[in-house]
């Protein structure tokens, strides 16, 4: 049996993340899933963007490509089509993956690129000091919404489902067992899968909104969570402010490369 440690680099520890940051939980989950699946490292490629979570590649002992802010999924599209035999993971923050990079998210989902996107959603731009992102809840305080945020926020999973993702799931950093289950299933789907992990940035978002220590933030998240089965029995009113966790969509269809390979097969002259 392999351990998550077999997929990690330890010479970079301690991590750069703040004490209590949830990104480390997601990192450990990714490594644990690779161990559970016993994948060959050489078949794994991770593309990450810029942000606190973007630094996840520093600690993984697999093929890694660290790109620009917002463009990780676009680069991952190139990797996945350049070598269709790879498992491509794409790790992004909420700013990276849904705000500056939101356009690439919907198109990668629509095209059904064979990538497992993992978004660690801490409701703000942790890296740059805690400004609001496209997922910052309305009325909450960030460095750039000192009087309360007036915009409506994206539901990342609903966005990915509407855009055509094959597999979509959500878990909170309170529940690493669920994170691992979702990442594992996502990796086994050939096509676009998206796993949203609700995570805590105690340093900025937690502080601005007086949510207390990281442990309390995770507990609050857990209290907000309802499973897909529970949610099915709840009214839209009752669901307000809740986080629906679990598998939200699992409808695999042929991925972009599989479709394109048919064109190659039919047209090939060389």
């Amino acid at each position, binding site marked *: 049996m392999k351990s998550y440690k077999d997929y990690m680099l330890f010479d970079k520890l301690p991590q750069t993340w703040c004490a209590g940051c949830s990104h480390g939980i997601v990192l450990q989950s990714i490594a644990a899933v690779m161990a559970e699946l016993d994948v060959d490292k050489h*078949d794994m490629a991770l*593309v990450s963007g810029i942000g606190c979570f973007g630094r996840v590649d520093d600690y993984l002992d697999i093929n890694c490509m660290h790109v620009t802010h917002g*463009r990780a999924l*676009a680069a991952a599209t*190139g*990797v996945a*089509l*350049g070598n269709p035999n790879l498992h491509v993971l794409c790790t992004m923050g909420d700013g990276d993956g849904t705000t500056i990079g939101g356009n690439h998210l919907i*198109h990668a989902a629509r095209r059904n690129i064979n990538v497992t996107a993992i978004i660690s959603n801490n409701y703000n731009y942790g890296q740059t000091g805690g400004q609001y992102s496209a997922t910052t809840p309305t009325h909450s305080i960030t460095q750039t919404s000192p009087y309360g945020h007036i915009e409506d926020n994206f539901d990342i999973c609903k966005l990915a489902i509407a855009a055509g993702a094959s597999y979509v799931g959500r878990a909170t950093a309170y529940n690493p067992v669920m994170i691992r289950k979702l990442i594992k299933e996502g990796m086994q789907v050939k096509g676009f899968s998206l796993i949203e992990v609700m995570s805590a940035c105690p340093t900025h978002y937690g502080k601005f909104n007086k949510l207390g220590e990281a442990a309390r933030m995770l507990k609050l998240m857990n209290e907000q969570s309802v499973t897909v089965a529970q949610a099915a029995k709840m009214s839209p009113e009752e669901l307000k402010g809740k986080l629906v966790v679990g598998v939200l969509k699992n409808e695999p269809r042929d991925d972009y490369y599989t479709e394109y390979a048919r*064109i190659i097969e039919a047209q090939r002259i060389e």
Partner: protein
Amino acid sequence: MGKTVKKFMEGNDAMVAGAIAAGARFFAGYPISPSSEVAKGAAKELPRHGGIYIQMEDELSSMAALCGASLAGKKAFTATSGPGFSLMQENLGLAVMSELPCVVYDVQRSGPSTGAATKPAQGDLMQAKYGTHGDHSIIALAPSSVQDCYDLSITAFNLAEKYRTPVIFLADEVIGHLRATVSIREPEPGEIINRKAPAPGTTQKDFRPYDYSGNMPAPMVGVGDRNLLMRTTGSTHDEKGEFRPTPENIDRVTHYLMSKIEDHVDDITITREYKMEDADTVLISFGCSVRSSMSAVDLLRKEGVKAGMLELVTVWPMPEKQIRKALQQAKNVVVVELNMGQLAGEVRKYNDYGCNVIQANRTDGVLITPKQVVDALKGGMK
């Protein structure tokens, strides 16, 4: 000699043919005139050669996808023009920093912004080198004929692979849409350069995807190699590809990114001369303006002026030696280009010889005429 066939085609199509002959098997782009025929040709031809075409949602993602495909081992290209080239700049820098070979076809058009879409211009000369932030060097080639679009495409991919760098194919509307009979010569296997792979038996412990000790890039593997893992990043990194923002490391990376190209300027430079032997009046030009300049030389010769022309096929790195030679040789130098004097500024940098440097510019979306070149010379001649 490889098999040669003659084909009547336009510049943009010849670029696709050249890219495929060079071994390119991945295209990601976003259509824009006057480069769209490159996308059209790539969509049609790539699957026939086992390659992949993908039309991305914009040019930011196109350039990022090129980086990804290059890292996965593919020879990758895109095609764009002014507005799209501007959008590519950030990830062009990513390709520079991560040392991911690829070719960016920029079929220049008038600007800034939408400008007089889609009239010809050569206003991206400076952007090709200085468009992305931070110090670095780059390679850019400018075709002046449809034949060049084919032949220089092979050169562009070869240089990209050899120096692990993005190469800008700085074409323009005139050349992109020009039609001519082209010799499509299948390259010999030995003519095609592929990125250097690590020595057989290299272990992960010994493998370094980057090398800052000299002025040539380290060998690399495509992601998915059975023995070696690759690591790249747009952040300042060490030999292993790991983030290292120390002053010493930042300094050596910057110097390396300059010298890996500037130290090989002789290998990278392609220039052509026309009636230069006895010339005391030299026209310096690139791309479509070369065609007007050649005719201008002929007109001037008829009038008894000893005119000649220096064509810069490689525009970056700037062919300093050849430009200096022209400045030394001539009394008058006319820099001919479809912009307000971007190349002229470079030529003046090297003018330690008291040569009279005259500008012949046109920026109204029409190719400069030979007569305008002659008039510019007469107006500024000493």
